[in-house]
């Protein structure tokens, strides 16, 4: 009887999940409609001049213009490439240093307090340092992005491996798992759920830093200006173009939402359900 029950469980869960998705979509649509409605209302009240508070329709037109003259799309492209490069380098360096911290106890202890300190360090405060040391170029931006996220990856790697329940390691050890096999087949999968959380956080740090750095570090390369989204945003300010500012903000918001909700959340959900971690919380 018990066995029957356990077999039915996963099916039941899927049903409730898909029903929730429909309500979620309806809620989102309702919220968006209300938001645009209030915006329109504020616009019609005329508290601010139209140039400072454009209507939703005006911003929509600007989005269309920015897409057709490819300022927004190429901006997204440039920003995404920088983000990918910075994030991948951060994960690489962070993982290697994090593993070294696990391997060498003393180094781990010292480095983790140092890294925690740098974790709370505002990433934008790296900008002057990066400009003077590296200059107004892609590498300068990359440096700020890496500094913003690498410590998060480091700490996550270190703590997720150290917090693996010792019973897994003992059992694996007993079955003959040593060295690289232990690392590959036990430590990595055992640490995965918390690694995913940390990588998600690192991504968010990298994203914040990137837009900030792009606003402050204008890059000129081979005589061609390479605009990132942050740059498009600050150009909007330079030209008093509120419509462009809001359009870019919407783009930044949407990218963040897609990454966090769609990509990272999907991975996290899959990992959590496979590891059997979300038996009690389906409403994250």
């Amino acid at each position: 009887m018990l066995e029957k029950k356990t077999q039915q469980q996963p099916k039941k869960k899927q049903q409730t999940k898909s029903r929730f998705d429909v309500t979620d979509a309806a809620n989102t649509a309702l919220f968006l409609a209300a938001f645009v409605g209030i915006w329109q209302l504020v616009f019609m009240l005329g508290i601010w001049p139209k140039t400072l508070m454009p209507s939703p329709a005006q911003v929509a037109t600007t989005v269309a213009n920015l897409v057709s003259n490819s300022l927004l799309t190429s901006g997204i492209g440039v920003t995404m490439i920088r983000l990918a490069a910075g994030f991948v380098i951060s994960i690489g360096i962070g993982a290697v240093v994090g593993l070294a911290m696990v391997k060498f106890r003393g180094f781990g202890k010292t480095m983790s307090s140092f890294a925690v300190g740098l974790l709370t360090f505002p990433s934008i405060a790296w900008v002057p340092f990066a400009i003077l040391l590296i200059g107004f170029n892609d590498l300068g931006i990359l440096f700020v992005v890496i500094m913003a996220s690498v410590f998060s990856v480091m700490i996550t790697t270190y703590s997720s491996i150290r917090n693996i329940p010792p019973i897994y390691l003992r059992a694996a050890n007993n079955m003959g798992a040593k060295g690289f096999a232990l690392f590959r087949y036990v430590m990595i999968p055992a640490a995965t759920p918390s690694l995913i959380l940390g990588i998600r956080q690192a991504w968010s740090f990298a994203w914040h830093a990137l837009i900030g750095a792009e606003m402050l570090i204008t890059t000129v390369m081979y005589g061609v200006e390479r605009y990132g989204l942050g740059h498009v945003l600050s150009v909007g300010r330079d030209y008093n173009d509120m419509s462009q500012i809001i359009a870019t903000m919407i783009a930044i918001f949407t990218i963040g939402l897609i990454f966090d909700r769609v990509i990272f959340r999907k991975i996290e959900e899959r990992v959590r359900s496979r590891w059997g971690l979300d038996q009690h919380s389906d409403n994250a």
Partner: protein
Amino acid sequence: MIASEYKEKSAGGAVMLQVRAVSKVFETNSQKAPSNHVVLNGVSIDIKDGEFVTIVGPSGCGKSTLLNIIAGLDSPDSGSVFVKGERKTSTDPDRIVIFQEGALFPWLTVIENVEFGLKLTGVPKEKRMESASHFVHMMQLSRFSNSYTYQLSGGMKQRVAIARALAMNPDILLMDEPFAALDVQTRDMLHSHLLQIHEATKKTILFVTHNINEALLLGNRIIVLSPSLGNIKRDISIDLPRPRDIDSPELLLLKRQILKELEEDFQLARKENTTATKEKAAN
């Protein structure tokens, strides 16, 4: 010397496991009252091939520590462990532990858990799948081959753990209170299951428990550990056929004897404790 002893004894019923004068002291590193707690004090045991030995004693008598030392997961302060006459100082798939918590890997399915050890030893995929499904079938888990461990009940988890251990084809199964967290009915079921497995595979089993009934029902031989001495209090062979009835007069008598001895031991320990505190107070 040990090797010759092994040969000598192997003439009649080969000796599988030898524990020689194993001692272990735990240091309490509290600054106010640093003290040493002797958990094991020169324990020696010989276990023959195919024996089902239960080690019984109250919590804190060092039975789990002894098991961990035999497994190589813990090292003794002095003394040594021999398997088939060969000295062992580290873990080895010839001695597989079944833990109380099961210690299954939650990221693997039932069948993947069972084949895990074989994967490590480099058995090719097809062969290890064949072997793993054999043991999954033996533990009546075929329907759950592709389930993840969180979908299983406590009893099923322990059955997976047993299948995983058997798949490694160890010389000795070391079981550390494997059924302590289960309800009575499930435990009864697993007891008869384990006896069938012992009958079929003739594996040497060392089974640690604090439950005297469990020890009496399962073992060919019961070793009673004393918490105050850190040593073997009694070593009893039981020739009664299995499955056994816990209410049979023979078992009831044995149970009473064991309980009485443990009670004496307990009082002795308490007396020692009070004198120790008095001494401390006097100082």
